[in-house]
């Protein structure tokens, strides 16, 4: 009888454990992300507990499109060379540089650098293979790349599918931390590219300054994402990202809520709020120095 009771208790305990776990990550620190919302903020019920918080960081692809209108001339010197993928042999280095190459590829695509894009795609495939990410949907076949390489939109879709496949596969196989490392690598490389574009400009370009300053928001999300994992490979970035955050804290972004217009027919809502960004060239220069250091530790 006691054994049966014990067996039931163990089984019940396990059921509770599994149902309370985050379904998609191994080391995701779920309980620490639970927050309490004030009832007045959201609804009339008593306090409701938020079960899970996700952090969305712009993908390398999105970062490139954000910078698209601000870029100057193509400069391959600022990118991580596509042919050094062989030196990345640990899970951590491969994942980080998979993100780096994603940002670099988005940059080459922006300038219609076809051969460079092919080269980066090939290196990305090799790093993906080394992480054990299957490309069974055919998005990564050489023939598909060759067929579409002169079509910017198709390349965009190939890049999107590639990183989406990697993210989904890693999360479903309990390797959410590896997916997060790809995001960190991509974000750092994109910011590195942006700060270098600024350096190359002869005059202070307010548009680029603002675009870099706006990364303050994404950095907040990135720090929170990094903290949500109990994983040494990710956690070692926290002090560096926090140092970067201290620098970003010098940037004042004031937000004023504006009119919200919803178009029912086209299912689109336009938010007409206003922000004022107070950022100096010196602060962004300082950001550039820190980013360069973080990026060096990633690509070395």
């Amino acid at each position: 009888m006691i054994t049966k009771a014990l067996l039931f208790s163990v089984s019940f305990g396990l059921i509770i454990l599994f149902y309370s776990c985050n379904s998609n990550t191994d080391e995701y620190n779920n309980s620490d992300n639970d927050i309490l919302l004030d009832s007045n903020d959201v609804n009339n019920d008593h306090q409701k507990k938020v079960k899970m918080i996700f952090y969305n960081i712009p993908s390398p692809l999105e970062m490139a499109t954000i910078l698209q209108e601000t870029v100057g001339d193509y400069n391959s010197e600022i990118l991580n060379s596509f042919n050094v993928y062989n030196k990345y042999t640990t899970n951590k280095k491969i994942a980080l540089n998979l993100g780096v190459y994603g940002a670099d590829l988005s940059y080459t695509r922006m300038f219609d650098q076809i051969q460079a894009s092919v080269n980066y795609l090939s290196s990305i495939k090799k790093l993906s293979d080394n992480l054990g990410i299957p490309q069974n949907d055919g998005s990564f076949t050489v023939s598909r790349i060759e067929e579409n390489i002169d079509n910017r939109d198709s390349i965009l879709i190939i890049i999107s599918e590639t990183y989406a496949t990697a993210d989904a596969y890693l999360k479903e196989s309990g390797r959410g931390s590896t997916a997060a490392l790809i995001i960190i690598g991509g974000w750092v490389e994109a910011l590195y590219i942006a700060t270098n574009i600024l350096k190359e400009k002869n005059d202070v370009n307010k548009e680029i300054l603002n675009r870099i300053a706006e990364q303050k928001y994404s950095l907040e999300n990135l720090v929170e994402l990094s903290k949500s994992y109990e994983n040494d490979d990710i956690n070692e970035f926290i002090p560096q990202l926090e140092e970067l955050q201290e620098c970003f804290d010098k940037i004042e972004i004031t937000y004023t809520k504006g009119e919200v217009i919803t178009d029912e027919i086209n299912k689109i809502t336009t938010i007409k709020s206003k922000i004022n960004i107070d950022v100096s060239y010196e602060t962004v220069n300082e950001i550039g120095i820190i980013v360069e250091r973080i990026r060096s530790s990633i690509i070395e």
Partner: protein
Amino acid sequence: MRNIIKVIIVLSLLLSISSIASSQCKNFVKKHCLADLEPFVYDGQLNSAILTEGDIAELLLTLYAGQDYRILVCGQEILGDIEFNLFDTNRNLIFSNKDHDFTTNWDFKSNSTQQLIVQVIVPKQESSSSMLHNGCIAILKGFKE
């Protein structure tokens, strides 16, 4: 000895169920959700989880000035009409799909870059059964160049 074997069997079964549930959730998203993001480009970050009725999940994201975005909240049928709200960081409500027949996707555009919160609420179901339903929910973001 027999009891130890039973415990091992139960443990293995539960581990399998958990793993299958997670994998099924990702497969559900791929099969039933991603197509609704078109013609927007999927940003590649899969935010999905198994949630139970009454649960709330949130996604913190940044919308960049002048970019077009689509937010898609996709849930399994068993969970009923999923509510999704968009707030600014001061918790001012910007959009609620409750006002739009619980649509699963909506497009957004902001004339200034800002941090927003997508909140997803799984409805409590009126049922005599004491068993709580759970199912897969995904919050996805697409963007346009």
